[in-house]
């Protein structure tokens, strides 16, 4: 078969493998003209790289470094400024990056089941409380688990936040008892709610309920492994 110019280029770029690679190598061994093509590709690449290399080797301007370092703070302050003048500035020390850009989108129709059960989580919320780990939950999860910890009786509790409601649920013999609920019903009006303010309320509620430190990733995994039961 004939070797196309594209294949030579792909070979020079290190993109070939398997059969195609063997074909080109065989053709190159037999044809000096093809080898010259590969050399031309490599020479061009070397020229381009040499051209741009000095830029990556020069010190980065101070202004750009400041933009990275200072920018993070500016973003957080801006987020604070947009929030209602609520208490608890400490919430940003807690969860700054996670909260800063999190805007919870109300998902119409999601989680309606929660409202039927009054004191216990059901449906998607119960499922998230049972199966979602802080460390591995996806960024856009409909229910976000904020933190897991032990409550006054040593039982496992978890702070959560979703488009519909936020709060704290603690595990008992019946299931996840909602010990603190914040917000709710925003899906009915189709409003967008900024996650941060409710999250901050949840976090300060946790401070009142928690007995001991928050669970780390391993602690959460263990607790989930035991189905959140404490005997």
């Amino acid at each position, binding site marked *: 078969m004939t070797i196309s110019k594209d294949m030579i280029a792909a070979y020079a770029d290190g993109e070939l493998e398997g059969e195609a690679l063997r074909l080109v190598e065989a053709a190159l061994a037999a044809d000096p003209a093809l080898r010259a*093509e590969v050399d031309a590709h490599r020479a061009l690449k070397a020229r381009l790289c040499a051209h741009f290399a000095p830029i990556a080797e020069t010190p980065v301007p101070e202004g750009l*470094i400041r*933009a990275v370092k200072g*920018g993070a703070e500016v973003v957080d302050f801006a987020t604070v400024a947009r929030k209602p003048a609520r208490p608890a500035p400490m919430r940003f020390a807690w*969860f700054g990056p*996670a909260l800063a850009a999190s805007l919870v989108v109300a998902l119409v129709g999601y989680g309606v089941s929660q409202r039927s059960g009054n004191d216990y989580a059901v449906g998607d919320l119960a499922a998230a409380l049972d199966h979602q780990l802080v460390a591995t939950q996806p960024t856009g999860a409909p229910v976000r688990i904020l933190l897991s910890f032990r409550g006054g009786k040593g039982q496992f509790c978890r702070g959560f936040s979703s488009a519909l409601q936020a709060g704290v649920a603690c595990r008992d013999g019946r299931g996840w008892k909602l010990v603190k609920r914040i917000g709710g019903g925003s899906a009915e009006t189709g409003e967008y709610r900024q996650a941060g303010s409710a999250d901050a309320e949840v976090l300060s509620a946790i401070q009142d309920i928690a007995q001991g430190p928050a669970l780390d990733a391993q602690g959460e995994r263990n607790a989930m492994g035991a189905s959140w039961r404490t005997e």
Partner: protein
Amino acid sequence: MDETGGPGRFIRERAKKLSAQQSNGFEDGLLALLPRMRRFAAGLARNLPEADDLCQMTIERALRSRAQWQAGTRIDSWMYRIMRNIWIDEGRAKTRRMQTFVDADAGSGVGMSGGQEERAELTDIDRALAKLPDEQREAVLLVMVEGYSYKEAAGIAGCPVGTLNSRLVRGRDALMGLLGETG
């Protein structure tokens, strides 16, 4: 429960530490990437001051969207994608503003960092690159200078691999012609 030394403080300290770790990982990632970002920006923007403006805008947008970056995924291709999107948007606006009175050939100057004797050749490369359509130039830079695979480069440019490949082929052929590297 003890009011001041209670669990609240434990949790707060722990969460603070976690959040600081995440934040530092992100910031450190950005800082480490800056030299490469400038190199890519210089190829796109055609001169260093413009390249640094592009870097600045990229950093700002990245910090605003940092929640979209998933820890554990590659921060470099994420940043490159942000940068090329800004560059495409800005480029369209700028082209509309500038087209009438600036010749495309006028933009050269990346080679300012080289030695005097290299300058002529460096300027040739700048001129040749400036003649390529934006998308071809981008493909050439991503693969030949930044060393991305076709697939990674396509991910950054937001196009299918086949499209990236044909932009690269056309861009590279044009460069070879302009620079006198015949295949």
